[in-house]
């Protein structure tokens, strides 16, 4: 095909994904989808290979490579008709990444043939299960994590399959909001279908098929060239993941995670042998999550300008032992594997690859720290009438530190790696939930020292206005701090505290079951900081002075973290007017 048509179609596929995401975000009911943007869209060829995606949530898009194929195969492509939409969330039956991320898959028909598939994926703020928010790591198995939706038809020829819809939404805690989310994801698929079909009619079905094939080959070729530039070799790293804090008798041993990376020519192989077995509690990674973390890392350390599609992943092979933490088997629970263990894998890979691509790796980061999750009845009758919700589930994504880079500091208060959901406005939280946010601030000295400093974390302090609610923390790095690279110091660990009434604060482990909180209690959430890059003694004096003035570091850090002589520290403090 001529290059003009190719470029037009290739660009059109990405634009379609972008349009789908916009349609979805602007319709959704959950704040996390709507303003947080925890939603994604992608386009697949007729063989379910991902050919284009939006600039959305990497974890949703990487795992969609596996879940879209699983969805279509489970239904059987011969059964599909124009206007059908398959819903699925299940990790084991549908190749999902975790149960709260619900995928809609729609075939695109032209003249009776399937020429493509489109998918939208959104994080539902409740999918049922053990506790409100469906985000507790202390679960026995997958059944405790919420309703399992195997791939089934949710729309038949653009008409909702009401029985399925009712069954799904009634298994969640806020069915009316779920219906909005469903309409949003349907709208996204509908828009995608219309766009892709229009492209096929205009340029011809065969031209579109050829363009998709070529786009995949094109990205593969670029990726192989980029991999070739990395020095051949074997690179290894090992780390440990903390277990879920459970009741007596629950496993307490840390789980080793291990990788051996073999880079040879234009391909790269990842072997996770030596990683510990799957464990009790929702920190296991299904294979789709492990693939996604691996693919993300490869893309990040090679060439970010390569158009992203499944062709990028062809030079990458992955071995993950069956039944291990990184390729768990039914019925292991998984909810936080996707948000907490997955970034730990990326940190592990960046550590392994640091000698190969020192200029591309970063200090370790906060790793997920997805959320504090509240759920309970809203005691405020006025608000209940206004929001239409008597039960309020509130998932609040938090911001931690992102590690320092080879040439600049890390980033303060941000989501890292495969996650990218935004926070909800404090004013909106207070208007829609029985919570008062008393503080939201960066925390000094939480970014590891280094020639380049790690990014700071932030803390959010809530006052509970529910009469009674569940609170679930779900974070990572409660024990193992994010380490620095090439001599950079580690950042702070995760912290969560509940202060009941006027009692003393009680520390909550990073991954635990839910707590019950009452009106007037205070809950503090503080994700981990991040690691520095390079020897702190090489940090420029001016950079330290600026950090002091801005309160990113405290006076204590000068001698302790940056190894300054006390006279030099005193002189800096005087200059910063802090002496």
């Amino acid at each position: 095909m001529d290059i003009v048509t190719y470029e037009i179609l290739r660009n059109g596929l990405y634009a379609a994904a972008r349009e789908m995401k916009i349609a979805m975000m602007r319709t959704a009911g959950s704040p996390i989808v709507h303003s947080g943007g925890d939603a994604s869209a992608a386009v697949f060829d007729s063989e379910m290979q991902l050919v284009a995606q939006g600039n959305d949530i990497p974890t949703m898009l990487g795992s969609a490579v596996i879940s879209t194929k699983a969805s279509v195969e489970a239904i059987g492509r011969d059964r599909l008709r124009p206007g059908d939409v398959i819903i699925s969330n299940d990790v084991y039956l549908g190749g999902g990444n975790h149960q709260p991320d619900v995928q809609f898959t729609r075939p695109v028909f032209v003249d009776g043939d399937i020429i493509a598939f489109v998918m939208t994926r959104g994080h539902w703020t409740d999918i049922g299960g053990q506790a409100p928010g469906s985000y507790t790591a202390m679960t026995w198995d997958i059944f405790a994590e919420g309703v399992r939706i195997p791939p089934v038809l949710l729309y038949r020829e653009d008409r909702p399959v009401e029985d399925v819809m009712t069954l799904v939404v009634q298994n969640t805690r806020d069915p009316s909001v779920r219906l909005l989310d469903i309409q949003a994801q349907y709208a996204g698929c509908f828009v995608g279908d219309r766009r892709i079909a229009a492209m096929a009619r205009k340029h011809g079905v065969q031209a579109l098929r050829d363009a998709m094939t070529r786009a995949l080959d094109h990205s593969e070729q670029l990726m192989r060239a980029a991999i070739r530039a990395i020095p051949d070799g074997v690179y290894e790293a090992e780390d440990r993941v903390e277990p879920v804090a459970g009741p007596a008798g629950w496993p307490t041993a840390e789980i080793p995670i291990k990788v051996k990376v073999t880079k040879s020519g234009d391909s790269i192989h990842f072997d996770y042998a030596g990683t510990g077995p799957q464990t009790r509690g929702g920190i296991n990674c299904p294979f789709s999550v492990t693939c996604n973390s691996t693919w993300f890392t490869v893309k990040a350390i090679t060439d970010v300008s390569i158009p992203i599609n499944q062709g990028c992943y062809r030079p990458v092979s992955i071995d993950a032992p069956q039944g291990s933490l990184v390729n768990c088997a039914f019925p292991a629970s998984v909810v936080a594997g996707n948000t907490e263990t997955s970034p730990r894998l990326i940190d592990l890979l960046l550590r392994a690859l640091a000698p190969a691509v020192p200029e591309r790796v970063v200090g370790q980061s906060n790793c997920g720290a997805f959320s504090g999750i509240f759920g309970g009845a809203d005691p405020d009758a006025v608000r209940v009438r206004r929001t239409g919700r008597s039960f309020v589930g509130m998932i609040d994504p938090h911001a931690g530190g992102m590690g320092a880079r080879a040439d600049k500091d890390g980033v303060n208060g941000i989501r890292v790696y495969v996650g990218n959901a935004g926070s909800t406005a404090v004013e909106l939280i207070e208007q829609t939930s029985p919570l008062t946010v008393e503080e939201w601030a960066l925390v000094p000295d939480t970014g590891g020292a280094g020639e380049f400093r790690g990014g700071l974390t932030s803390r959010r302090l809530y006052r509970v206005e529910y009469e009674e609610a569940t609170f679930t923390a779900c974070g990572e790095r409660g024990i193992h701090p994010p380490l620095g690279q090439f001599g950079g110091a580690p950042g702070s660990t995760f912290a969560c505290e509940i202060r009941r009434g006027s009692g003393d604060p009680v520390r909550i482990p990073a991954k635990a079951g839910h707590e019950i909180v009452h009106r007037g209690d205070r809950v503090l959430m503080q994700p981990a900081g991040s690691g520095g890059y390079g020897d702190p003694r090489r940090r420029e004096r001016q950079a330290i002075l600026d950090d002091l003035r801005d309160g990113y570091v405290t006076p204590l850090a000068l001698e302790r973290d940056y190894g300054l002589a006390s006279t030099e520290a005193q002189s800096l403090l005087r200059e910063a007017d802090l002496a």
Partner: protein
Amino acid sequence: MYRKATARVGIDVGGTFTDVVLVTAEGEVHTAKVPTTPADRVIGAVAGFRRILEISGLPASSVGFIGHGSTMATNMVVEGTGAPSALVTTRGFRDILELRRIARHDRADLYDLSFSNPKPLVPRRHRFEVTERLNHRGEVMLPLDMADLEKVAEEIATSGVQAVAICFLHSFLNPEHERAAAALLSARLPNCFVTASHEINPEMGEYERTSSTVMNAMLGPVCARYIRNLGGGFADAGFNGELLFMTSNGGLAHADLVAARPVLLLESGPAGGVSAALRVCERIGSPDLILGDMGGTTFDVSLVRGARPELRTSSLLHSYTVRAPSIDIDSIGAGGGSIAWIDAGGGVRIGPQSAGADPGPACYGRGGARPTVTDCNLVLGYLDPETFLEGSFRLDLEAAREAIRVHLAEPLGIGIPEAAGTVRAVANALMAQAMRLMTVERGHDPREFTYLCCGGAGPVHAIDLARELEMRRVVVPPAPGLFSAVGMVVADRQVDRQAALERELSGLAESEIEQGFKELEADTRKVLLAGGAEGVDAVLQRRLDCRYAGQPDSISFEFPDQGYAAIRAAFEGAHRRLWNFDKPDQPVIVNNLRVEGRAPTGWRGDLRLAPSGSAPEPWRERAVFAQDGYRRLPVYRRSDLPVGTVLPGPIVIEEQSSSILLGENDTARVDDALNLLIDL
């Protein structure tokens, strides 16, 4: 006040050039282009004014009006050259400005680990907290601690800042604390520009409100100085008429208003183009236009619907959020100077690198060696090397061919014109996509619009873009390169006001809404007509922002003619148009009341932008490349075409810095305002 018998001047101060137009009382138009002095844009603007007086031969005293637009405010944000500012927030929340929404939506690439996060607009050392707190109903939970505030005032006094932004939580529901804080800080800091969030953006969302207010603070002192110096400069040149400023909403406003709210100036430049487009709408009788402005580095798209500009209430500027009514404009990095390149997999890419104005495209012969979109258009015959800018600037065809041969044709293994044609097609695809997103994202069908092109390079791609989107008509205004400056002359005064409500619709009495609108309207009318338009009939349009309970973002729509009872239906109609569904059982929240005020003070007469020609004859032929090779086509000079000319394609119509290529079945007609109307 509106001295019909005087001349009007429009000045558009761009980054490289300052464009000036003068319209005499009889509608005769003079134009000038002078270089901008980036260090002090007043210099270029005043020089432009003096130049247009020379050209027109009119004394300064005969000019009764100057409309002025500038990209200055935008550049200050992009370049980080605003005034050093302080921020005062509710205790516990000074980092909102830096934490923003914690996501990376504005990051160019999600897989990039080495991205530079945008620097906070106010460094942390200048972010201060005071004890005070309102709840989500606007009720006082903690009173404002005045002693705290005194301490903060002392710290700010010694910090060296020139401006202070104040933003407290929930202040949009109750401005009492912000007002008290602003009063005290203004008294203690007489040399600082003090601005509070309830004045700038009384609306829910603390990050967005803080960011908008801080931007207003940073721009304040610099814009005030600029406005003063500009007025002084024009006065020194003998001008004693009325000076108005183009604001982001496409209307002009008085100096006092923009000095207090310089955040309204952020889209001041491109808004001029939209104002000019409104007059084109009236003239040609097409109320719905897509306006495409192709310059050296970007292609900007905006919409006019129902002969009114499409506005938005929130924008992302250089990754900083600003909430102020603004023309809805989208920009992509595909301008004439954008560089085309081949990636390692053989794909053709355009931008984001641009050759800019210096060195410029290879054909400028100023050292640019990489091929740009303009080079490709030259090789394909869409531009003429000898007549570019009326021959004042000869383009180097060989340099363009060489750049394309080395960087595109040889790596692709195809001929030079074929390579150039590929780049042109890819550029067209990118621009058409931007136009499609602008319409489709907002629930419109591009086929129902007319395409109005402007900017130096606009006409060169216009017909292909319209065809791609199945639009049926293209309009090329006279002097498309000066379109924004024309807008400064023809624009009306416009002022927008808003007030937060955040109430459930079913619990609101009609009288409450009516009362709210009445107050807003009185305020709007006062500000709109102050300083020169007293006595003019103001046109006030009521609007509402509503959302379904449970949705965070609202939809803005016109207050229904049928009144209060029809609000829900009007909201749901807008919701269906945008999203294809409604939720009749869901409660509706009224977030904001808005009033758009317009005073029809712009030039309404004919504009004789160019002398009407008398000889619709081709003056030469030119080879233009199409799929199967070059063919020679007759070339008409636009300035030769008299009113009423009708010309069938295929032909070339040439003007200052561009040409239009009509296909076999296209017809061009010159209307009585010298617009070129091309039916596809």
